């Protein structure tokens, strides 16, 4: 009992936030949550709303599960996790429909599909079930940011090269790129290019971070 209280932002706790941003990124390293990353990254705004939604859902679910971890019967733990995630997703969906109607239309089914996002179940099962609420909270922020950052990077390139806009603002038109014969690349709007963009991000990340390259 005489164990010293760990400071809130000890280096161990900070690693929970920074690791998922780079060396343990849920999308580029663990390759989880890909399907939503392909579907809603055509424009920046939905991508950001999606990132925020996932963060809210993951933060609340991680803390709730972590707080209940000792009273959740192991035999039904997956069901409990799913119920918590599903309720949070419905709440987020309802709030979006009420206060960000146009974005909620663009995201359509993908808000609902947050439930099936492997990152969420993964974090609840692997982390929140065995850790205290505060580290779980940080872990949620870290992983959701790691997911969100990739989403936003992909959406940035897809919107810029596919539609020539950023947040709907016609960047390329303003700088007069169309006058010299530039055309938007329609392929960027289609899902395959999201996969290729993520592939390029993984490539760049591995080129910079040698530790990620598998031994042959």
């Amino acid at each position, binding site marked *: 009992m005489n164990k010293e209280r760990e400071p809130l932002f000890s280096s161990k706790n900070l690693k929970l936030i920074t690791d998922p941003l780079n060396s343990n990124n849920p999308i580029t390293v663990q390759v989880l949550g890909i399907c939503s990353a392909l579907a809603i990254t055509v424009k920046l705004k939905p991508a950001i709303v999606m990132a925020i939604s996932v963060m809210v859902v993951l933060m609340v679910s991680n803390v709730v599960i972590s707080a209940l971890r000792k*009273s959740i*019967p192991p*035999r039904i733990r997956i069901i*409990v996790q799913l119920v918590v995630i599903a309720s949070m997703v*419905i709440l987020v969906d*309802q*709030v979006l*429909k009420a206060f960000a*109607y146009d974005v909620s239309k663009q995201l359509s089914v993908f808000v609902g599909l947050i439930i099936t996002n492997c990152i969420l179940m993964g974090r609840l099962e692997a982390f929140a079930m065995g850790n205290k609420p505060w580290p779980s909270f940080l872990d949620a922020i870290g992983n959701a940011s790691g997911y969100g950052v990739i989403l936003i990077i992909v959406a940035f390139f897809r919107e810029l090269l596919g539609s020539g806009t950023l947040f709907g603002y016609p960047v390329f038109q303003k700088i007069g790129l169309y006058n010299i014969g530039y055309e938007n690349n329609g392929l960027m709007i289609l899902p395959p290019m999201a996969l290729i963009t993520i592939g390029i991000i993984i490539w760049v990340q591995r080129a910079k971070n040698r530790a990620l390259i598998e031994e042959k």
Partner: protein
Amino acid sequence: MRNFSNTYIFIFSSVMVIIVAAILSTTAMLLQPIQQRNIEIEKKQFILASVNIESTGKNAESLYDKYITDSYVINSRGKRIEGVDAFSVNMADEIRKPYEERNLPIYIGTLDDGTKKYIVPLRGKGLWGPIYGYISFNNDFKTIFGATFDHDKETPGLGAEISTRAFQKDFKGKVIFDDTGNFTSILVVKGGAKPGSVNQVDAISGGTLTSKGLQAMLKDCLGSYVTYFKEQQNSVTHE
């Protein structure tokens, strides 16, 4: 690891389900009026867009009150149906009925220059899901003044292009009756409309099935208004 008894598991799951149900239903009830209002605002934006008035979520209601001056419901024989609010007619239900039983809303837009436009709602099937829109006519009841379409899940970049202005502006000035007064509807032509044609528009390349759905929607929905439109045309010429 602690061993949990079956009774505990039952009680745990029952309590959990009750708490979750309470939270969700409360939220749904609290937010429903706001969500309903969003849907109405969106509908008003659509109706305004069909007479080429751009609106945002914020000013849609005031613009709608300013420009949409009247609305009523008719049946396919061109007679007015009293006691039905045009705005609350759900086209998704109406298009499933035979022509004779449909409630057909008409909205009247009065523009800044004082001209009256007659707005008709559309609904039909695209490739993957419903497509819908509004189309407005000049007071000759055959020339299109403006059109707007949207969709739920057409393919982005292909069928989804029907919701772009670039596709919709083609409809302006097209005529849905031929010289002898027969209803021709509008043809959405693959490979491009004939130059100078008054009832053809270009289909979307790569969006053939959506374009066909759109053409069928126009034929079906406008077709139910033909009797009324013809009566109105006659009364205009006799005036």
